Structure formats: structure tokens, C-alpha cells
């Protein structure tokens, strides 16, 4: 009996609520349901807001995010929400207000077109200072032992070396998190390589395989990227694919060239940028080198530090770098 009446009551309230608010229809960009734009701009510079920082799944990004979040919290008094999201999903977050900042964007011209030009919910906030390049790598010992293996033209000759239980008779190219930027399938198809992409599922799977390939002298061809701390630990050689030229990767199905070297950049939601505030200033000014990022990432992964501890260590050691980022 109680259940019945309660259900009716709630249904009534729900209908009423809908009826009252249903005048103009609800648009997503109205941004109701998400707290006020962070930074709250002009009026209250000291009163800190909340910054919602997307964290994409690789440790270099996490290093940047940890340092920025440390400064936002300790020096500017903001609250920071770190959101573990994949790249594409992070962009969706600009629209709803779930995400204010993507701190390390790898290209993604299609998403820039959609969210910056068409939907106008995001804006660019300049370079991070990091140069990023994706490529195919083998351990250095393989390059020494098998001459010419780093030239794509010879890859088919060595395909047998890379065979595994998962690659179905072809050579295996190990890939990372399914959400990463990828032309692998197209490159293999268009260059007629006798290889199959096998997805390890995460950055960690790539790192583990690479470390094992070094320690146990097991052959491995894998997708990887620079900046990364792993280059300080394991000697890797990059496989030369046909060099990148402007527009050679315009059609994702016809890619037959290497990845471009990217100027990694920051993207923020339009609301966040318009709101101004010190947080936006700091993020706009943030720029550091690959070495900086690698040192923090290395502390996180290999020295048993939490991201916050590693960030604090770097901040304490490099005041000259980050003081330039603080809003004037």
C-alpha cells in the first residue's frame, strides 16, 4: 500500500516538474546540471572555483596534469577534479561542462573541426611545449642484429620474427589502448605489409612487452610515442615508414605514411576560456620541455611516487619554470 501511493506521488511530482520546466525545451549547451563555470571570472579572483581536468590514459599526460593541478591547488587555491577519460570522450565533455581542460592534445583535427569550429564549445589554449611523435619501434638489439629492419621495405622479410600466438601467421604489431590515435590498419594495408595489429589494451601492456623484449631478447614491433620516459630505460629504434608529407594522412583510409611530428597543445572549453580567471591564465601559460615531462612521469612510474608527490618534487626543484606561468 505504501509503495503504491509513493509511486503515484513521485510520478505526479515528476510530471509536474516536467510540465513546469518544459516551456522552451532543454538544450544541452544550457549547461544546467553542471556547476557554475569555473574560475567565476572578473568579480572574485581570490575565491577559487573548480577546474575539471581530463586525464587521458598515458603517464606523460598524467605528469602534466599533476603539475598543473598542484599549482592550481597550492598557488591559486582552486579545487581540481581529475577525470580519467579517453581522448574522444574528453572532447564530448566540453559540451556538457564535464570537462574544462584537455592538457595534452595529439592532433585530432577532426575533433577540432567538430567542437571548435562547428559546435563552438571549445577553444585552443596554445602549445604545451612538448613535441609529440608517434611511431613504430623495435628494441635496439634487434636493429643491431638484423640490419635494415628499421626500414619499412624490409619489414615483410622479417615478419616471421614477429609471429605470435595472436597474430595468425603474420607478424605482430603491438598496439596500446584502443582509444589512442591510430593509422596502423591503414598503413599495413596500404603498404601491403604482412602484419596484424594486436591490441594490448593499455600503455602498461606496451611498456611491459618492451621491457621483456629487452630483457629476454624477444622480438617485438610496437606502437609507441615520444615524449616517454621509457626511452631512458630501454634502447629503442624507430622504424622508418614512408616520410610524412602534408596531407598524406588526410583520408584515414588511405594513409601510407609515417605520423607527423605534432606540436602538442591545450584545449579548453569555451565557457572556461570566457570565464577568464587565473586558472585559465595558468593553463594558457603552461609550457615545458619533453625532459621536464619525462622526469615527472619517470618518478610516477618507476620511483614509487604518487602523481602528487612527483609533481611536488618537480615544482620544488624548478621554480624558475613555473613561476613564469602564474598569472600576472
Amino acid at each position, binding site marked *: 500500500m505504501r509503495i503504491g501511493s509513493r509511486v503515484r506521488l513521485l510520478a505526479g511530482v515528476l510530471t509536474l516538474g516536467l510540465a513546469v520546466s518544459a516551456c522552451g525545451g532543454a538544450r544541452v*549547451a544550457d549547461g544546467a546540471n553542471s556547476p557554475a563555470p569555473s574560475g567565476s571570472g572578473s568579480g572574485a579572483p581570490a575565491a577559487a572555483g573548480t577546474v575539471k581536468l581530463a586525464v587521458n590514459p598515458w603517464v606523460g599526460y598524467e605528469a602534466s596534469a599533476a603539475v598543473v593541478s598542484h599549482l592550481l591547488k597550492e598557488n591559486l587555491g582552486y579545487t581540481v577534479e581529475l577525470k580519467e577519460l579517453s581522448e*574522444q570522450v574528453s572532447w564530448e565533455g566540453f*559540451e556538457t561542462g*564535464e570537462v574544462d581542460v584537455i592538457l595534452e592534445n595529439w592532433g585530432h583535427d577532426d575533433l577540432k573541426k567538430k567542437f571548435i569550429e562547428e559546435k563552438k564549445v571549445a577553444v585552443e589554449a596554445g602549445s604545451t611545449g612538448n613535441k609529440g611523435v608517434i611511431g613504430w619501434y623495435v628494441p635496439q638489439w634487434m636493429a643491431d642484429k638484423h640490419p635494415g629492419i628499421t626500414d619499412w621495405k624490409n619489414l615483410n622479410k622479417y615478419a616471421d620474427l614477429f609471429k605470435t600466438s595472436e597474430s595468425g601467421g603474420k607478424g605482430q604489431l603491438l598496439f596500446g589502448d584502443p582509444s589512442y590515435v*591510430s593509422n596502423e590498419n591503414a598503413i599495413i594495408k596500404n603498404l601491403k605489409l604482412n602484419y596484424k595489429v594486436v591490441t594490448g589494451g593499455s600503455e602498461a601492456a606496451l611498456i611491459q612487452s618492451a621491457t621483456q623484449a629487452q630483457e629476454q631478447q624477444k622480438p617485438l614491433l610496437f606502437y609507441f610515442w615520444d615524449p616517454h620516459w621509457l626511452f631512458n630505460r630501454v634502447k629503442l629504434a624507430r622504424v622508418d615508414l614512408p616520410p610524412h608529407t602534408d596531407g598524406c594522412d588526410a583520408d584515414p583510409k588511405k594513409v601510407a605514411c609515417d605520423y607527423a611530428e605534432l606540436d602538442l597543445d591545450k584545449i579548453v572549453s569555451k565557457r572556461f576560456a570566457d570565464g577568464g580567471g587565473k586558472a585559465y591564465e595558468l593553463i594558457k601559460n603552461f609550457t615545458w620541455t619533453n625532459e621536464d615531462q619525462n622526469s615527472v612521469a619517470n618518478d610516477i612510474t618507476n620511483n614509487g611516487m604518487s602523481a602528487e608527490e612527483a609533481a611536488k618534487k618537480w615544482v620544488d626543484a624548478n621554480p624558475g619554470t613555473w613561476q613564469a606561468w602564474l598569472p600576472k
Partner: protein
Amino acid sequence: MTAPAAPATVSPALSAAPAPVVVGRPGSRLPRVALPAAVTIATVATVGLYLAFRGTATLPHDDEAAPFLFLNDVRDWVDDNRNESPLFLYLVNYVRLFIGGVFDLFAGALRPVDPPLLVAAATALGWFAGGWRTALVAGLGFGAFGVLGVWEASVDTLALVLTAVLLSLLVGLPLGVWAGRVPRVRRALTPALDVMQIMPTFAYLGPMVLFFQIGPASAAVATIIYAIPPSIRITALAVQQVSPAAVEASTSLGATRWQTLLTVHLPMARNTIVLAVGQTVMMALSMVVFAALIAAPGLGSAVIRGLSRADVGVMLPAGLAIVLMGIVLDRLIMAGARRTGHPGGPGARRPHRSRSRYGTAAVAGLVFAGGAVLGLTALGGFPAAFEIRIAGPVNEAVRWMQSSWYDTTEAIKNVATEGLLNPLQTVLTTAPWWLTAATVAALAWRVSGVRRALTALGCLLAIALLGLWEHSMETLTTVVVAVALTLAAGVALGVAAARSPRFAALQRPLLDAAQTLPAFIYLLPALALFGATRFTAVFASVVYAVPPVVRLVEDGIRGVPPTVVEAALAGGSTRRQLLWKVQLPMARRAVLLAANQGIVMTLAMVVVGGLVGAGGLGFDVVSGFSQSADFGLGFAAGLATVLLGIMLDRITQGVERRPSPPQQKMRIA
């Protein structure tokens, strides 16, 4: 703690038919001698045809198949019209705002509360609901969130779970009551519920983002979709089982339909409905990790971070917190139900049984949390000083396992891959599609009858039309191997448990943990041990699916009447003979039920396996969620998984409806 697995809820077809009708299987009409001969001929013919036509009429995978492109177009349309189409302006967007509002309400109420105050509140609630034991469980459970250092995330997760459960029950209970009283409604709902339960979670995360965007609201919707079927099903079952005599008495006294519902149906079905509430909570909790993928705040995000960094230490506190939250909520609900429930009501047996099952898990949690809290009260100052960092030692242990077990695990992996996975996959992917379809149809016809055979065949052909034949065959391989291993392990452990109560008691908490712990957490050590391979996915599926199989087998063997066992022993049979000739044949129904369960549960893990190199449909679904160009592929793969699940279910469903032969065998033994 049998959250996602409780047999009553996962396999629709089984729970929906409490009293199996014995249908004559078509084969039984044939004369006895002809039967084995027919089977042999059919098998030989199939093998012959395979050898003759191998490699022809295969359906190779094409990333650009028409259905995928069509689904991509749909996606683009929705994306463009989200702020124009009336469907969104007046419906979808409001649903989103409303659910987001409910979440904000819960989160707003819970977040500002001081941790000690909330722990005290939970304890008081436990006291009020079920006395000092429940109070202790609730208090220690909530205290453990702080001790594990995941207080804030736990509160967010709690808010999300409460939102999803509240809304699921608001919709699910009335629907369940309606379905319980009107068979036509029940029949209409059943297929929809089937799809909701078999559809891999990842597959509807994509559409979720499309319709509701990311954030707590859409995470709550995804959770509701997953958690609502048990609330509808169990409620319907409960209402259905209310004694017709009582209903008749009520109507003959002149009660209206509403009065009968409120005064007879609901009170009598009450205890079972409480079970539905408990199940809904468990299902909602098992979605926590997936919810984090679409920006829901809470414990899931730590699990995701741990996965991308291969850091079990980061995941484990969050995982334990999820388990503990499950224990606390379960105890609270059960205790509350017992306190106010009618003793001896029609469903009274069920909550009691599940209580004892959860009991061991609760005790394990208690010991853990109790030790932690006691150790820390000495230190004082909650929560910062109370936190225990378990990351370090846990990671040490994993690293040790990885280096010292490497050779063994490598050997296991290679044997399973070369011996089972590769040959089967080769056969399935190179066989002509018509031969596979004919084999499936014949098998289903033989086992389950004509109608189910047609359904199975229809599912298979639909998969072909979706353009996902090859990947479905890869997934089928993984599922078949995983089910075989699950059954082998499950029967062995179940038999051992049935024979030795001590072993059973020892094993029980482990099984409970294996079921409630988010799969991602043991995926990581598996990944470290076995690498990114199909075998890792198989391994994870087996861990996930073994517990219910063990339970069913154990129950089945225990259920063999002691007189029969005595008679066999007196007749001079050895323990081995007793097992093979008496106990297992008599527990046949339970074992077959376990097989069916194993299939459904393994399929549920297939997609998670896609994250660690399993390929097939699982990977399509994952990649559809993370790459916008693959949206259509991912969604179609989700549908194909459902079709594959229904197909396998239909093939195996008929098995346990056969008249089982143990009576004859018994005499022989």
C-alpha cells in the same frame, strides 16, 4: 555477494520457467538403434563437407560494411540534432536533467557530511534495521572507506548507486507487478530484458554518450539499464507465485483489483521483492567501473587509472571498497526486510538462504575492516592518519608473481592457445557459413527442439547480415574454450566442496570475492602473467564464471538423497564409482544448468577481454566506444554479442528439459 551472477537473474529463460515442462525431443521418436547411427552419419558428413569446402563461402570481415556505415550516419544525425529535434528538446534532455538532479541531490546530501558522522549514521541505520551485528558490519564497512583512503570516491559511488537503484525500483517494481499479473505484459517484456542483460555494457556506453552525453546522469542511465531487469523479473516472479487461493478469497470478498494488489499480492510477495531490491543494488555496484568511463565520479576511476598504469595497488583499495559497499548495503536491506517482514511468508526462504551465502563474505570483510579500524583507533585523527597504504606491498606481490611464475604461465598459455584456441578458431573461421549454420541448426534441433533451433539459426543469420561473421566466430571460439575450462574447474571444485565441508567453507569467501571484485582488478595480474592474448581473456572469464558453477554443482551433489548414496556404498561401489555413476548423473540437471549459466557469464566477460587482446566482437565494442569512426562497428558488435548469447542459450536450453536418465543408471550402480 553474488552480484552480477545470481543464477535466478542472469539467465532469463531458466528463471522464467519455474516448472520445466518436459517436451519430447524430436530425436526420441526415432528407434533406439537408429539414433547413434544418425548422429555418427551426421558428424561424418559435417567433417567431410568441411574438408571439401574449407575456405570457401567464408564471410571475411570488412570494416566498411553497410550496417556500420548506416549506424555511423544515425550517430551523426543525432549529434547534429541534439539541440533542434523535439525528441531531444522535450524528452531526452529532460530525462538527463532530471536524473542528473537526483544524483546532485544525493551527492549534495552526502558529500558535506563529516566522515565520522556518516559512519555513525550507517551504524545507527544498521542498528535500527537489524541489531548490533548489522550495525557492526555497516559501521566497519563505512569506516573502511576512510581507512582505505577512498572516502570521497566512495561517497560519490554511493550517491550514484542510490540514484540508479531508486530510479530502477521506481520503474522496475510497478512494471514487475504488472508483468506478474498480466502474462501478455510478461511475454512482451521478456525479450527486452534478455537483450538488456546480455548486451555488453560497453556497447551501450557509446549510445549513452550520444544521447545523454558524459557525466553522472548518463552513467546513472547506463547503470539503470543494467540493474533494472532483476528488479522487474524477480518482482514479477514473486507476484506470480502468490497463492491463487488467497487472490480468489480476496476477490470473492469483493475487493477491487487495486485492493487485491495492495492487500494480497504485495504483502505476500514482499520478501521476494526485497530480494529484487538487493539484486538491483548488486547489479548497480557492478557497473561502477564502467560508469567511470563516461565521467561518473567515484571509485571506478581509480580502477581505470590502475588499468592504464598496470598498477594493482591503485586499483585494489577501490575494488575492496566496492566489495565492502556491496556487503553493507546487502546486509542493511536484508536486515530491514527481516525486521519488518512476515516470518514464514511465501518468499521467506530466499532471503534467508542468500543471507547465509553473503554471511561468509560479510565475516571476511568484518575481520579485515575490524582489524584495520582497531589498529587505527590507537593513532587517532580520522581520516588522514587512518589511511593504510596497501599499494606498495600489493605491487611487490604482483611483481614477484610475475617474475617467478613466468615460465609456468607461459607454458599454460601456449598449451591452451595452440591446443584449443587456434585449432577451433581455424575451423570456425574457415568453414563455409552455410555449413556452420546447418551444424548449429542441427545441434539445436537435436538438443532443444525445432522452435529453438529456428531461433538459433535466425540469430546466426542475423549476425551474418550485420557483417560480423568472422569476428563472431572468433568470439565463439573464446567462449567455447572458456566454458569448457569453466566447467572442468567448476565441477572439480564443486565435487571437492560437496565432499569436504571444510574445503567448502574455505573456498566460499574466495568465490564471493571473485564474483564481486570488479573484473578489471584480476584482469591486470592476468595481463602481467599471460600478456595481451586471447588466453588472458579466457582466464578472466573462467575466474568470473566459475563461482556459480561451483555452487550449482555443489548444491546438486549435496541434493542426492543420502539413502541413495548409502545404498550404493552398501552395494560395494568405490568412492570414484559413487561419484561417476551415482552423484554426477543424479546432479545432471544442476551441472547442465551450470553450463548454461557459464555461457551467459562468459559472454559477459568477452568484451572486457577485448581490452586485453581478445580481439573479436569484444574489441569491436571497445573500439566503437573509443574511436568515433568505429561507432557503428561497435554498436553492431554489441548486437551481435546479444545474438550470439541468445543462440548459445537456445542451443543449451533444451538440455535440462530432457527427462534425465539417472533412475535407470542408478540401478546399474
